[in-house]
């Protein structure tokens, strides 16, 4: 026994160190995924007995108007949230200079990411308030009619996304600011000598060097958009009449809200959400794998 340990110490010790992490990860991430998938084939109210109903939850889901509203909103979230990336990039470029007190400006721009999403949601709810909100005060000053953004099925999702973009932009900005630190000044110098400036310098010299930062920013933003939940919960609870729901919120509604407790159905929604996320997760895993092999 002792000699086996002696001989294989180098091989075994990484696994020993990893063991607690692997155990926790299995217990809290991997196993629940399979439990969710299993649960989606059952009818269960969280209290009584589970009844196996095969694919019925999925069949019902395919015929559920609320599911399609949520799916559509998820796509809108996904596309519009990507705006945070260019916005973050330009804020970062703008702040990437040496002026007196620039650290303070940088921290102020980062502030929305630091405060809780709940606070962001409340701030924007007041901002959109139809009678006293700042937005409508401004609109009226320009002679427009007041709009109740959060009570209008056509605007509500965009209104919430705008609130979500605020902290997300700050996050992307930080990623790019760190990225900009590692941009090689000699390459910029060389570019300038070759008469590249402005957009061309940005596009051909700086952006390629920010590629790792862009990659991270996209991943973080996409995942953030797909699990968007807190803002919707704070600002509208999916309303008006369910038109601002996304899959994550719909799942919560079906599973845990006051009118929910259809665990199996909610699990089916979760599985669909997971399937969509898997596309991105697969891309990330593939890239990490490729990078590690050094290709």
């Amino acid at each position, binding site marked *: 026994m002792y000699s086996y340990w002696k001989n294989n110490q180098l091989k075994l010790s990484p696994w020993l160190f990893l063991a607690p992490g692997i155990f926790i990860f299995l217990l809290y991430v991997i196993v629940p995924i399979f439990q969710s998938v299993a649960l989606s084939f059952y009818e269960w*109210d969280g209290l009584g007995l589970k009844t196996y109903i095969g694919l019925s939850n999925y069949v019902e889901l395919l015929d559920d108007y609320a599911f399609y509203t949520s799916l559509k909103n998820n796509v809108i979230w996904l596309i519009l949230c990507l705006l945070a990336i260019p916005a973050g990039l330009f804020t970062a470029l703008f702040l990437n200079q040496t002026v007196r007190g620039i650290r303070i400006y940088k921290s102020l721009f980062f502030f929305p990411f630091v405060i809780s999403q709940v606070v962001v949601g409340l701030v924007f709810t007041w901002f959109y308030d139809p009678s006293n909100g700042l937005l409508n005060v401004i609109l009226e000053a320009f002679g427009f009619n007041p709009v109740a953004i959060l009570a209008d099925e056509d605007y509500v999702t965009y209104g919430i996304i705008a609130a979500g973009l605020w902290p997300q932009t700050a996050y992307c900005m930080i990623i790019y600011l760190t990225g900009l630190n590692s941009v090689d000044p000699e390459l910029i110098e060389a570019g300038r000598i070759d008469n590249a400036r402005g957009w061309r310098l940005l596009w051909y010299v700086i952006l390629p060097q920010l590629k790792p930062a862009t990659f991270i920013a996209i991943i973080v933003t996409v995942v953030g958009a797909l699990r968007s939940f807190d803002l919707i919960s704070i600002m509208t609870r999916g*309303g008006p009449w369910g038109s601002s729901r996304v899959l994550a919120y719909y799942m919560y509604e079906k599973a845990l809200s006051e009118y929910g407790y259809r665990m199996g159905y909610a699990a089916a929604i979760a599985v669909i959400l997971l399937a969509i996320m898997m596309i991105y997760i697969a891309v990330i895993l593939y890239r990490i794998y490729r990078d590690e092999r050094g290709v």
Partner: protein
Amino acid sequence: MKKFFNTKIAIALATTLISASVLAGTVVINSNQADPAPKAALQGVIDGFEAENPDVDVVLNIFDHEGYKAAIRNFLTADAPDIAFWFAGNRMRPYVEAGLFAPIDDVWADQGLYSLMKTSAPSMTIDGKKWGIPYTYYNWGVYYRQDIFENLGIAVPTNWDEFITAGETLKANGVTPITIGTKWLWTAGGVFDYLNLRTNGYDFHMALTKGEIAWTDDRVRATMANYKQLIDGGFFLENHAALSWQEALAPMGNGEAAMYIMGNFAVAPLRELGLDDTKLGLFQFPEITPGVPMAEEAPTDTIHLTAGAKNPVDAKRFLAYAARADVQTTWNAALGQLPTNAAAGVSDDKFLNAAFSMLNNDAPGGVAQFFDRDAPAEMASAGMEGFQEFMVHPDRLEAILQRLEKVRQQVY
């Protein structure tokens, strides 16, 4: 190592001691009465019970009102208290069906509650058994600006035509007839309930919420036509979908709106807005279809014996105590609501007196719980969402009814 064992023994001893004292007459109560006034009221009830029953020790756990709705599912299955607070009607059905509440017909019989709590009895009955004690209920109705009505010479409407005329007079004078905030949906459920109770009556309403009648039924359409008349007439506050019920109180306070179809709990915040008894009044929602007996909404709050209770004997003593007329009188005086025991007295308050007489004398049709307590959860949420959409887009009536019908066929 030695120390470890000592601690372990100490813990074991402590546990034994605690469980021993449990056997000696402890009743554990889990309650959702977290606001200061209801909390103090409940504490008063418990103090009174302990004074009368010195051998029983009550342990009270208080949960936040919203958090309780999630917590009850966990504690009933995992570590049940002896007594749990909850709501009547369909709201208690999941727990009854899962075998988590225990029937207490013996308490009802011993205390003579079958006659004393006749009004609430149907909402406490499932499978012919009584599943709890209703300790309070509150009325719904039309709260209105009495001073504005008097200034404009509007009489309290008693039928639909008068109601419409009153609203038109208010509108002509620049006052929004009905304030409402439908952001969190349930307020629209209250309006629908009254329109349906008045258009088609109590039995139809209960059959509809029980899923026995199609949402595309012509009688539902008749209710919705009345609803549409109010919407098309501009009776409701603009932007109601952006407001919570509390935010919709403000127009009533400053006189921009004159009526609010609401529960008794709106009286306190309206008084805080400066509406005293000369300015604020209550009338019964007017008759729509002549001859349909007037039915009212009166949601009931309840206490239940859990199936996992460790001390059911003393818990039943507490339930019996909570059902007693004198206890309900003081308890409800502190809550500002109505006692369910008919022998109990109502505190001297304009609105409570009016409501008590309304529920006991002018509601021959019956007493409904509320849309989201009478209908099962999924139907309730789809329904109230539909009402909110209808109030903004009345032209979508057909699509909404079709959708609700589809939900009905899935739910029941």
